[in-house]
């Protein structure tokens, strides 16, 4: 099998119970099972995690860099979407 036939996988690690899996990088593997083993050997050498996910990179649908303005800029001037925009009445407890 030529090496350029090995597909790319994205690797996600959950650092500890209660946290969510976080993207840490990518690697090549012949299939998902090998990808999990490779991820173990490449990304968890120093006690980084308690759980691993691998996802074929081809299965990820990403936003387009060209769409950045229409996707993300409109949020910039809507500061009322942040909770800090609102003043909390002094009588309200437990927030």
């Amino acid at each position, binding site marked *: *099998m030529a*090496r350029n036939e090995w597909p790319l996988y994205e690797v996600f690690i959950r650092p500890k119970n209660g946290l969510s899996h976080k993207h840490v990088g990518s*690697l*090549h593997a012949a299939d998902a*099972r090998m990808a999990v083993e490779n991820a173990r*050997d*490449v990304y968890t050498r120093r006690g980084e995690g308690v759980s691993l996910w691998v996802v074929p990179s081809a299965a990820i649908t990403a936003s387009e860099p060209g769409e950045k303005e229409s996707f993300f800029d409109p949020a910039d001037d809507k500061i009322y979407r942040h909770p800090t925009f609102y003043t909390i009445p002094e009588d309200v407890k437990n927030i």
Partner: protein
Amino acid sequence: MTDDTLRSALVDYALRLGDTSLVLGHRLSEWCGHAPELEEDLALANMALDLVGHARMWLAFAGETEGKGRDEDRLAYHRDGFDYRNHLLVEQPNRDFGHTIARQFLHDAWSVGLYERLASSANPEVAGIAAKAVKEVRYHLRHSGEWVVRLGDGTEKSRAIMADAFDRLSRYTDEMFEADGVERTLTAAGIAPDPEELRAGWEARVDAVLAEATLSRPAIHGRQTGGRSGRHTEHLGHLLAEMQFLQRAYPGATW
């Protein structure tokens, strides 16, 4: 049984296990930077480090038990080939990735069975080392076993390489189940299992993976043993020359 007999058997036993781990670890380290894939390069180096770690524990234990002031480095770097007690299997050269994997797999299938038994040894230090090592060798077996299946049930060429590798290496596997006075003393003391009792489990693990790999365990012709008493193949000397060079040329060097 005198204390001296038991102590001497423990030292020999620990040297056999330590040397076997050390030599195999060194063989794997020869792949560093040369493995077929970057990911596999790291996997082989990880296993090499695990094995060298096991060797450190066994050799340190052997040195302490012996009580003559030899530490793990002294034992690793300042003994000649005829003082090494490793299995002949693990000193066999890497040749190619397929042979490396076959050698690793035959060893892993044995060490998993051994360490599982040693974890309940009557000697607490032996049990402690085994309990730590067994988690790592289980992963090694999984990794080498998966590659045996991929390569055996792979292309025509990879299958031929694996069949050739098992054919070449099978003559060295009987040594793993041999017993002499050392093992018999420790078996009687409840410290180590009778090596022959490990055979059925080893055969079952090997055969299950080989069947999936569309291969079969070859008949052994020209059975070779002797490493456990210092009679080695010509390959060990070259390995030690490289591994020991620095400490031999600059004794006690540190960095």
